[in-house]
């Protein structure tokens, strides 16, 4: 099976997204980048370091666990909580960039918006994802997309990152692959 995104594709996509974020927000001074664990958090830290190297100033970055805000808690077995680390400056009045690896049903992002609301009231929230695979179940869209990957619902999209999996690649697995 060939990779839908190779190491070079991922690197180029993240660099482009970083520039788009800076362009849309006129710089990084108001930005707080929050990744959704686990791989969304890895991507958030990568975006932050790319933006830092472009702008030459540190960027606020952290992680946001959404487990306790999921809407399937009453039907699925409880899962362990992941780490949440909000930068000291908080989110009040900031532009929060939520980061996840794959955008699918949109339910994770809905949960993330709820989780964020409990921490504070950001000025605005934007969404960056590495892959948008379609099949939305809620009226949610991404502001910054690495790659649109049309998929069948029966397929699954696997994002592998160096931090966790030793390699950067995106694979599509499943029936029609």
């Amino acid at each position, binding site marked *: 099976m060939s990779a839908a995104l190779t190491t070079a594709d991922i690197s180029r996509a993240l660099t482009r997204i970083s520039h788009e974020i800076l362009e849309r927000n006129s710089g990084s001074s108001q930005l707080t980048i929050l990744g959704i664990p686990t791989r969304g958090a890895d991507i958030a830290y990568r975006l932050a370091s790319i933006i830092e190297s472009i702008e030459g100033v540190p960027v606020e970055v952290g992680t946001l666990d959404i487990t*306790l*805000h999921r809407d399937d*808690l*009453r039907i*699925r*077995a409880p899962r*362990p909580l992941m780490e*949440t680390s909000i930068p000291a400056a908080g989110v009040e009045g900031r532009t929060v960039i939520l980061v996840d690896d794959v955008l699918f049903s949109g339910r994770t992002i809905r949960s993330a918006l709820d989780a964020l609301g*409990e*921490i504070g009231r950001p000025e605005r929230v934007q969404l960056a994802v590495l892959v948008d695979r379609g099949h939305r179940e809620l009226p949610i869209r991404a502001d910054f997309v690495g790659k649109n990957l049309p998929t069948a619902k029966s397929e699954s999209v696997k994002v592998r990152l160096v931090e966790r999996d030793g390699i950067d690649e995106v694979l599509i697995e499943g029936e029609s692959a």
Partner: protein
Amino acid sequence: MRHLLSINDIDKDFAITILDTAHEMARVSEGAVKKLPTLRGKTVVNLFAEDSTRTRISFEAAAKRLSADVINFTAKGSSISKGESLKDTAQTLQALGADAVVIRHPASGAAHQLARGKWISGTVINAGDGTHEHPSQALLDAFTIRKHLRGGKGDLSGVEVAIVGDILHSRVARSNVLLLTKLGAKVTLVAPPTLIPPQAQAWPVTISYDFNSVLPHMDAIIMLRIQQERMSDLYFPSEREYSSLFGIDTERLALTKPHSILMHPGPMNRGLEISAEAADSPQSVVVEQVANGVSIRMAILYLFIAGSQESSNE
């Protein structure tokens, strides 16, 4: 349906999952909005057939922070004081649609009876049954020890813990011995021989009758309350003698390692097992134990109740 009746119900990995979950729950308690939607629509009944302050209010606070509906049921002011049986009480709770029952009862085994009796379909959480077990207290003690001595991560391997006092009547001691040794801690029981249960010889612990010789080696010291209400016989000659041999005061505290912590599950008999100066010393984490109790109970309620609909359909 999963119940928390005894520390024996959970293995080491799950115990660590509970502690890790509590660590994240603690963040909620520190936040501006102390509320999560996690257990919205679930009903938690606190069935307290025995007096309790800390355990009851911390289970109540935990359930409310997770948005569960809470019904409090205490012996005084309910039909339990009119002699209603546990079965009849349980059937009432079932009719109320309780998703979980947190039970405190003076009879050892009451929580097991409630869980095995098939009178209710919800999760049963033991909040202390007679002289048997008190699992949530042991978990919060382990959480407190891990936070101070292990940086809030992993297990408790190599940590030296003394449990001092009325081991015989203490459900806290039983649950703590099971949990702390499961997590790799070395436990020493310190008490007069009359207050050590005979079966403790078979536990994976060291037993000592000499408090002073034990103190310099300990990382954490858990003082137990002398339970006058459970003492039908004379277990020691006088309170003064007990206090001078097995109570902790500032002189004894001076024998401990500087980083060691002093714990007590409450309520304290100041001047008997713990002096007022020791209870209020910088090494004392008694008040913090209460705050940690809320986080641990949030973790327990989340891990045992969320998603329980699925398991009850199996």
